[in-house]
Each structure stands twice: as C-alpha cells, then as structure tokens.
C-alpha cells in the first residue's frame, strides 16, 4: 500500500468581498501533523471545510495520494474524519446512542468497542445520560471518543481542545500521537497550540 499523502496547491477562496484563503499550499505526509494558526476570522474553519470538500475553492486544488479529491469524494471522505466546532450530537439521545449511530453509519462497531472508547475519554459515568444534560466539555469528550473509533488516515480537527480541562487536553494529545504513530495525518486548527506531547508538528499561519 503506498503511503497516503495530502497535498494542497494554491488554495484561493472568497467569501463575498473577503479574500479568505490566499494561496494556501502545503504537503502533509504520513505521520505528520499540521497546526493551523490564525486570529478569529482568519479562515481556519474555512480551510478545514475546503480541505474536506464541503466548500469549493475558487482556485487551487486538494490532492489525496496524487489525485484530485473531487474525482472521488466518497473515497476521500471514507479516509477522513472532520470534527467541527460543535460536536455533531443529538441532544435527545444519550452519549452512547449518539456514538452508536454516528460511527455505525461509517463502520461496523461492537458494543464492547463503543464502551471501551467511552471509557477511554472518561465517559463511563455519564454515557447513558441524554446529551442535553451534558456540559460542553463532556460533549467534546464524546466527539473525541469518535476519533478513537475512527483510525482513518486523515483527521481534520477544528480546535480540538476547546472547553476541555487539562486532563482532556492531554487526552487529545494522546489520541493525536497515536494517530501519527500508526502513520495517520492530522490537520488541526488551534488557538493555543496542541499539547507538548505531539511531535512532528508543522505550523501554518493564516493572516487575518
């Protein structure tokens, strides 16, 4: 199996009158992590959404293993996870049910595996509670459990450490480190930087 690689060539994107992405280009190889820095409104989220193919750039392209991702989006999507600002959870389902449906749409997942992932993020005590009763940090932890269950080659994370306590941030660091160690890639939009434990990080600054 050839190693995966993500290449981004000269991305330009306008939002109305605003030139948000101005020629972003980078290459990400196996086991590498890219930290995307930038002030609020500098286009970090827009960049991630463009990378995963939700937003069409006006110019430039995203290459996955040398082929334009537009040629086979479903295959590219099968190889990535995108976690946005808000964890995509239903407030009327429990944490466990949310994960069961969310992950189940993508892959077969057993109850023990679900339980193990929930335990990993410290959710044993509250995974049977409705998500509407959980705090922002707990919801974020449920989203992290999905990462533990989806070891696909590419993770796109939008501020993964938001609303987490110190231990939660370390957990993010551990998950990312494991992803890099098995040859996966991570692109993370950050405000404060990823935990120190993550190595092989390249920094990309977006101008406001």
């Amino acid at each position, binding site marked *: 199996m050839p190693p995966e690689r993500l290449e981004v060539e000269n991305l330009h994107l306008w939002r109305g009158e605003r030139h948000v992405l101005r020629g972003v280009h980078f290459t990400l190889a196996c086991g590498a992590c890219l930290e995307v820095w930038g002030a609020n409104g500098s286009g970090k989220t827009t960049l991630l959404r463009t990378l995963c193919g939700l*937003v*069409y750039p006006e110019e430039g392209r995203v290459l996955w293993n040398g082929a334009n991702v537009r040629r086979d989006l479903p295959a*590219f999507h*099968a190889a990535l996870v995108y976690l946005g600002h808000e964890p995509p959870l239903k407030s009327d389902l429990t944490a466990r049910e949310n994960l069961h449906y969310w992950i189940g749409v993508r892959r077969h997942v057993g109850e023990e595996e679900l339980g193990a992932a929930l335990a990993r993020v410290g959710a044993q005590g509250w995974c049977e509670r409705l998500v509407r009763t959980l705090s922002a940090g707990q919801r974020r932890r449920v989203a992290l459990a999905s990462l533990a269950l989806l070891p*696909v080659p590419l993770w796109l994370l939008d501020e993964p450490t938001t609303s987490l306590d110190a231990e939660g941030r370390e957990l993010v660091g551990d998950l990312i480190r494991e992803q890099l160690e098995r040859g996966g890639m991570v692109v993370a939009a950050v405000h404060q930087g990823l935990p120190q434990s993550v190595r092989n990080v390249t920094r990309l600054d977006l101008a406001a």
Partner: protein
Amino acid sequence: MSRREGTVAQAFPPIDASSAAVAASTAAGIRRAGALEAARLALLRDLQLAFRKRGQLVQPLAFFAMVTLLFPLAISPELSRLRELAPGVVWVGALLGSLLALEFLFRDDAHDGTLEQYALSGQSLTALMFAKTFAHWLLTGLPLALMAPLAALSLGVAATAIPGILLSVAVGSVALSLIGSIGAALTLGIKRSGALLSLLTLPLSLPVLIFGARATQLAIHGASLLAPLELLGALAVLGITLAPLAAAAAVRISLE
C-alpha cells in the same frame, strides 16, 4: 505565510484512493459499513429521536383532525353535502398536515452538524436522504393514511370506502414526503423557511392531490380506483427514483 514541506521528486502513480482507504481501514481491523447498513442506522436514529419527542409526532395528526372538523362547521352539517366534499377535505387536510411536519425533516440535523457528518461519511448521501425521508413517511405519512378513513367516516362516507381511502392516502403520501424532502433540503439555509417551503412544495404536490382526490372519490362511490391509484403509484416511484438525489444535492449546497 505558508510553508511547503520537502519537495517530492518521484511522481506518484495514480492510485485507486478507495482501495487505499479500504486497505488502511482493514489494517486497523475495521470493517466499513455498507450503504444499506448506513441507511438502516439513519432510519433507526430518526425513529428513536421521534419517539423521544412525541409532541412533534402528534402535531400533523391533530392538525389534520382540526381541518376536517372545520368544514362541517363552515359549510353545512348535512351529511349528503359533506360526503361530496369528503375527498377534497381529506386530501387537503393530509397535504397540509404532511407539509407541517416537513420543516423538521432536515432542520435539526443541519443545525447540530449531523448532515455534515452524513455528507462526509463516505456513504451515499442519496441513500441516507432516502432513509431520512422514509422515516419521515413512517412518522407522518403512514399515520395520516391511517387517520384519513376516520376523517372520511366523520364526513358521512360509508365504511366500504375505507380500504380505498387508506390505500390512496398511503401511496399518495409517499410521493408527498419525497417531493417535500426536496423543498426541505432547498430551504435549509433560510431561517424562517415555513412559508417558502409551502410555496415550493405545494405546486409540485398538485398532481398527487388531483389523482389522490379522484381515487378517494371513486372509492366513496364504490367504483374501481385502479386508474388514479396507478398514477399515484407512478408518482411515488418517480419520487423514490429522483427525490433523494435532488435532496442530497441540495443538502451539499446548503453545507457550503
């Protein structure tokens, strides 16, 4: 501003990205879910959610009952006249009732990011949209079809017409749900989409209304309703074939 990491000397041969992804997944001991499995879970999720929020389920039915109740009050309590009006009343009520529930079809999922995850799941978004629309039909179309004979009975229709009415509303509401799914997906980006959704969906629903009311009329008169029922079936099949595709495309646009 940005940096490029090492230049690549060798050219990469064109690789089948899907096989690479599958290989990567199997390496980690993961089995991808098929399209059917994904659709089944999307369906179950919507059903489970609906039963957690039962209030929303009852709304279209209560609305339907109210509409049928209004006609005798506004026109005349004479059963012979009401019987003539029954097909129209039943169908307008069913149409408006199903329209009422449409707004909720994709709105919550768009709001909490579920649609985004569906679009990025690597699964066919068309299949997932079909599953969602089917869940919507099970939760509104089917109950409306079960209630339609009751509404007709209250308007003085003979009990012999019940199977025909049930069947025509059941088949017609499949088409209504599917047509509605396109409208609901197209209006996702709009805050107060209710009125626009009706304006988009109602004209497209006219054929269903015409054939549905005709089928119900024939059922009431004890005649064969095969011809309009077949046309309703054709509309439903056309909807099943095309509507999920259109809804998926509209959802992708709304996510941009």
